[in-house]
């Protein structure tokens, strides 16, 4: 083992060597500079590896004295962990800064080295006064480096920073002095050994001042205006060091002091961290400047790390591994991501976030940015996800539910502004491009790779055991690397990848899991064939697609709660990527992400609440305890959000309709079933164990019924074909939820039956419309018309899908309706039966509207030459049509396996007698119905065919038009505002109340944010006052 002194020696020596070498030549100076930092990072790595290998921790007293006379350093596993992280990031940041540093004089390099010395010293030192010295070293070098852009903004920001920093160090010094006075020592180890030394008034005040000073250095809300100015004005490279390495060092000091604090102090400190996390995120939503926005985000992340450490301590946890898992994970995530993002902002230059569309043309940069946003939002597979899971789990286990709620709320706000930003970046607009700069890009790539490596590390150390789950992100990245291949090749590869997943996963499933496995995986696979119909590169589809399919598999395979949530979040992320590519506006993906994340957070909250006591590592889904009820309801609420029930359906129409034409079908038919799958998995897990489930199922039933009704009702007013189908999906999801809420054998059979048929017919309809839209390049129905003449096959499949959807016998749709009504009446829910019947009658309206407006009516002049949709669009449709036909002929083939999978629940079973299925109330023989229908269809058809010779086939304008000739097809096609009279009669039911509610809520939040950020007046003196007041308030709380 190398003594930790050398870490300081290397950099201090370089401080002297660099100017000398610089005399010889610029490049020599720079070489020495980089060599020293690299050596520091290397040392850190070496130490970390050997300490992990079991080497003992080291304590070093420079010159043989103990502190404060000499410098005392301690190097344990925690120290080495932080050292390796901060030095690595420092190295990367200095590479980013290279271009700027080379223009400066040599002292800029020495300042950097001093800064690093300060950082490393803070981490290693065990003496309060030593810490003060290192902190001042860090501060002074930072003050100087902040001015590097040499503009007015940088100077004034630097000055404000100095005022606040000066105050902080003043308090630290006073605190140190008082500590010495009361305890007689400044040495941490002594203090820790006898913490009673600091009890009593003065001792408390001393400790308080030290902690307060550290907290000020960590920029707590609202006493942090100066820091934001620095983030905005400083060079992104320098700022990235401040917020990652510098903050990391101070955080570590706080970590070292944790054992000294009383419970009260810990509580207040934790509260300060949470407040910082929530409010910094809140204020960030109004921010347009990337540097400042990143500043807010950094501060919030710091707050979260503080809270993480403090709460762990509060819960009496001493295992360093847990700290590493929670605070370490959060910090590591923040470190690399924030570094990456600041460097990226350097790369993009001074543009407000709305203009980050320049990234759209740069796949690598966009990928890095996306990675950073995802990681920062705490989505899997990044360390932040695992750390948050562990943290929240501990919070829940200790009953800190409000804190949990605040963290989730703050995270949701964070997701909002980060993904909004990503949306700006992903939408290509005609902006100027940015020039290449490998010196900035390389560190970013390095940070990304390190982040991914850390993800693997964290996921391995935690409880995801199912190898398939690891494959989800891996598959995404693999397909990202395959992006340069032609689209069709990628489709085939994606089919192979997904197919193999299905082949591997399906045999291992049984019961409901198998049914949903076949639906999700099989449904996606068949519909992916349509991808072969589109040429070109099709960038950005397949990573998401494959990730989504693997997430489906993961959801079904996983047996742990964490694994389930991991797969769920991966699925959300994958589908977000899919919609991000296709959507026309940034609004849709953002809405989707917010609602999905909100739903996911509800599920998360439920899962961790339901975790059995004492299960720190992987708890199986089967072990979850739902006896309290709350957990179960939270989870179900989460799935309902994902299913898009009325009230939270805002994201739904855009999401299902705006993706690519071959992706929308999968989203709408298969992905929507993931929520159903989750609902069923958890309802069967909890069946019978949840108190008050009668009331629950009634409420769920009404939610389902109203969703069915309003989804259907809104569908009839849509002008956009895909939006109409999207709302129709919402309605069908309502039926499924309604049937599921019955909690009876027939009800669940009905729900899954509807889910299967919905998959089939909605797949057909979306693919068919997608085929049409891909030929016509418009989704407005009134611009279409008469497509039956040009696309007869698409029409045929669409018609079959439509008959199945509307529930008209003899096709499969009727079975679902019959089962549903039977179950509903059997249960005694008559009003819901009537509502469902009304909805299904209203469904005819939009059914006719879409098929008429698209396929019937007048063919438009511009579309007289379009061809039938691509054969690749038709193949999946015909596969589904065949399935529908088979299930229509022999419904038993479908109903029996489903009821077998559902098993025995409340209520009567279905009875079979030949092909007749019956229950206590009614009966249905699908086969006979089909036969009779075909019979009665043939008779008139034969008669008409006998007269076919006398019938002249005419063209579209040969219509009776009050003896006039039609003017143009556009004015002859009745399609726009098709159900105007319905609006007149029932328009009040379709007022956009939900949208107004959410928009109102959004505006309310953003006004709060707008008001809050006026705290940051920009005046250094105000900031100083805020610091003083903050400390006072903190004191009052902690006392």
């Amino acid at each position: 083992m190398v003594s930790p002194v050398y870490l300081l020696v290397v950099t201090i020596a370089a401080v002297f060597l660099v100017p000398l070498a610089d005399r010889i030549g610029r490049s020599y100076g720079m070489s020495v500079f980089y060599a020293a930092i690299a050596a520091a990072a290397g040392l850190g790595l070496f130490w970390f590896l050997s300490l992990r290998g079991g080497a003992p921790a080291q304590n070093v007293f420079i010159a043989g004295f103990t502190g404060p006379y000499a410098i005392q350093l301690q190097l344990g596993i925690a120290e080495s962990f932080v050292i390796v992280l901060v030095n690595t990031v420092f190295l990367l940041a200095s590479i980013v800064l290279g271009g700027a540093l080379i223009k400066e004089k040599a002292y800029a390099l020495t300042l950097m080295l001093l800064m690093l010395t300060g950082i490393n010293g803070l981490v290693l030192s065990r003496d309060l006064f030593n810490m003060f010295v290192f902190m001042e070293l860090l501060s002074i070098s930072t003050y100087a480096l902040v001015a590097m852009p040499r503009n007015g903004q940088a100077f004034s920001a630097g000055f404000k920073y100095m005022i606040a920093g000066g105050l902080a160090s003043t308090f630290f010094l006073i605190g140190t002095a008082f500590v010495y006075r009361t305890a007689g020592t400044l040495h941490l180890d002594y203090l820790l050994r006898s913490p009673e030394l600091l009890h009593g008034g003065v001792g408390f005040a001393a400790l308080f001042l030290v902690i307060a000073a550290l907290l000020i250095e960590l920029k707590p809300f609202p006493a942090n205006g100066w820091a934001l100015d620095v983030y905005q004005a400083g060079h992104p490279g320098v700022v990235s060091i401040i917020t990652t390495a510098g903050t990391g060092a101070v955080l570590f000091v706080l970590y070292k002091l944790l054992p000294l604090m009383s419970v009260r102090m810990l509580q207040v400190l934790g509260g300060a961290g949470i407040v910082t996390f929530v409010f910094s995120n809140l204020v960030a939503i109004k921010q347009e400047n990337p540097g400042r926005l990143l500043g807010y985000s950094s501060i919030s992340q710091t707050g979260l790390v503080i809270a993480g450490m403090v709460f762990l301590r509060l819960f009496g946890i001493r295992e360093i591994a847990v700290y590493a898992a929670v605070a370490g994970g959060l910090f590591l995530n923040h470190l690399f991501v924030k570094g990456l993002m600041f460097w990226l902002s350097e790369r993009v230059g001074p543009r407000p976030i709305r203009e980050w569309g320049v990234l759209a043309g740069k796949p690598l940069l966009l990928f890095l940015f996306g990675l950073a946003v995802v990681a920062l939002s705490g989505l899997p597979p990044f360390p932040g996800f695992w750390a948050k899971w562990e943290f929240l789990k501990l919070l829940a286990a200790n009953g800190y539910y409000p804190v949990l709620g605040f963290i989730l709320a703050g995270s949701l706000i964070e997701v909002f502004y980060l993904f909004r930003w990503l949306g700006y970046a992903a939408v290509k607009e005609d902006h100027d491009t940015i020039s290449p700069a490998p010196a900035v890009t390389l560190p970013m790539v390095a940070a990304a790779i390190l982040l991914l490596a850390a993800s693997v590390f964290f996921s391995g150390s935690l409880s995801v055991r199912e190898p398939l789950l690891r494959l989800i992100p891996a598959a995404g990245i693999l397909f990202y690397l395959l992006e340069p291949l032609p689209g069709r090749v990628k489709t085939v590869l994606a089919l192979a990848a997904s197919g193999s997943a299905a082949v591997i996963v399906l045999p291992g499933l049984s019961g409901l899991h198998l049914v949903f496995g076949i639906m999700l995986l099989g449904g996606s696979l068949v519909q992916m064939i349509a991808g072969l119909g589109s040429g070109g590169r099709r960038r950005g589809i397949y990573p998401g697609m494959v990730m989504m399919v693997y997430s489906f598999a993961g959801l079904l395979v996983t047996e742990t709660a964490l694994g389930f949530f991991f797969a769920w979040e991966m699925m959300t992320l994958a589908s977000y990527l899919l919609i991000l590519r296709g959507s026309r506006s940034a609004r849709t993906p953002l809405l989707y992400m917010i609602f999905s994340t909100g739903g996911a957070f509800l599920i998360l909250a439920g899962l961790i609440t339901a975790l059995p006591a004492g299960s720190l590592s992987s708890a199986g889904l089967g072990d979850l305890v739902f006896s309290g009820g709350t957990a179960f309801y939270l989870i179900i609420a989460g799935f309902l959000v994902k299913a898009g029930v009325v009230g939270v359906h805002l994201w739904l129409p855009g999401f299902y309709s705006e993706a690519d034409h071959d992706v929308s079908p999968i989203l709408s038919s298969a992905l929507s079933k993931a929520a159903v799958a989750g609902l069923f998995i958890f309802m069967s897990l909890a069946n019978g164990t949840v108190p008050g489930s009668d009331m629950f199922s009634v409420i769920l039933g009404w939610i389902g019924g109203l969703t069915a009704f309003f989804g259907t009702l809104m569908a009839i007013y849509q002008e956009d074909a895909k939006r109409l189908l999207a709302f129709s999906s919402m309605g069908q999801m309502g039926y499924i939820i309604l049937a599921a809420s019955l909690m009876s054998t027939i009800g669940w059979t009905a729900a899954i039956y509807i889910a299967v048929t919905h998959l089939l017919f909605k797949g057909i309809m979306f693919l068919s419309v997608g085929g049409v839209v891909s030929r016509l390049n418009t989704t407005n129905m009134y611009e279409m018309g008469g497509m039956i003449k040009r696309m007869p096959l698409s029409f045929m499949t669409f018609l079959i899908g439509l008959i199945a959807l509307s529930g008209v016998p003899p096709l499969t749709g009727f079975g679902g309706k019959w089962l549903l009504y039977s179950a509903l009446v059997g249960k005694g829910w008559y009003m819901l039966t009537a509502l469902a019947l009304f909805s299904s009658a209203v469904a005819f309206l939009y059914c006719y509207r879409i098929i008429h407006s698209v396929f019937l009516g007048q063919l438009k002049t511009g579309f007289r030459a379009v061809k039938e949709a691509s054969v690749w669009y038709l193949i999946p449709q015909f596969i589904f049509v065949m399935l529908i036909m088979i299930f229509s002929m022999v419904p038993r083939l479908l109903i029996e396996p489903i009821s077998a999978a559902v098993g025995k629940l409340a209520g009567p079973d279905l009875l079979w007698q030949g092909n007749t299925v019956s229950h206590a109330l009614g009966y249905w023989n699908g086969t006979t119905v089909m036969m009779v229908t075909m019979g009665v269809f043939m008779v008139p058809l034969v008669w008409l065919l006998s007269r076919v010779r006398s019938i002249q086939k005419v063209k579209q304008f040969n219509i009776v038009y009050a003896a006039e000739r039609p003017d143009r097809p556009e004015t002859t096609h009745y399609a726009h505002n098709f159900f105007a009279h319905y609006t007149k009669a029932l328009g009040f039911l379709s007022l956009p109340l939900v949208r107004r509610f959410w928009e109102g809520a959004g505006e309310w939040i953003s006004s709060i944010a707008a008001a809050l950020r006026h705290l940051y007046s920009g005046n250094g003196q105000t900031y100083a006052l805020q610091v003083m007041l903050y400390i006072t308030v903190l004191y009052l709380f902690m006392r």
Partner: protein
Amino acid sequence: MIHAVTATGIILILTGLWCMLTRKHIIRIIIGFSIIDTGIHIMIVSTGYIRNRTAPILDHAVGLQGAADKVVDPVPSALVLTAIVIGLAVTALMLSYAVKLYRRKRTLDINNYAELKW
């Protein structure tokens, strides 16, 4: 006596704070900061003071033998020495910032440097 010194230190700190928080002129703010610094130094020294002992300097007057009983607690003094150096550095840096700021805008009123906000 010792309390008087401590009190002086505290008064100086408070004066400095008042100065920092109320004066608009940047130089005065820096002066306020200096006053705080001085106050802290005095206070630290006072914490180590033991009545009737001399400064912790090992010269002939104290002698090596039994020095520990003759001098005051040397730790605060050592701290103060370091702190003075650091305070000096910070003050110098602040002044140089003030120069830079003045060159840009020809004003030293801190209210004029609030272009970064929100």
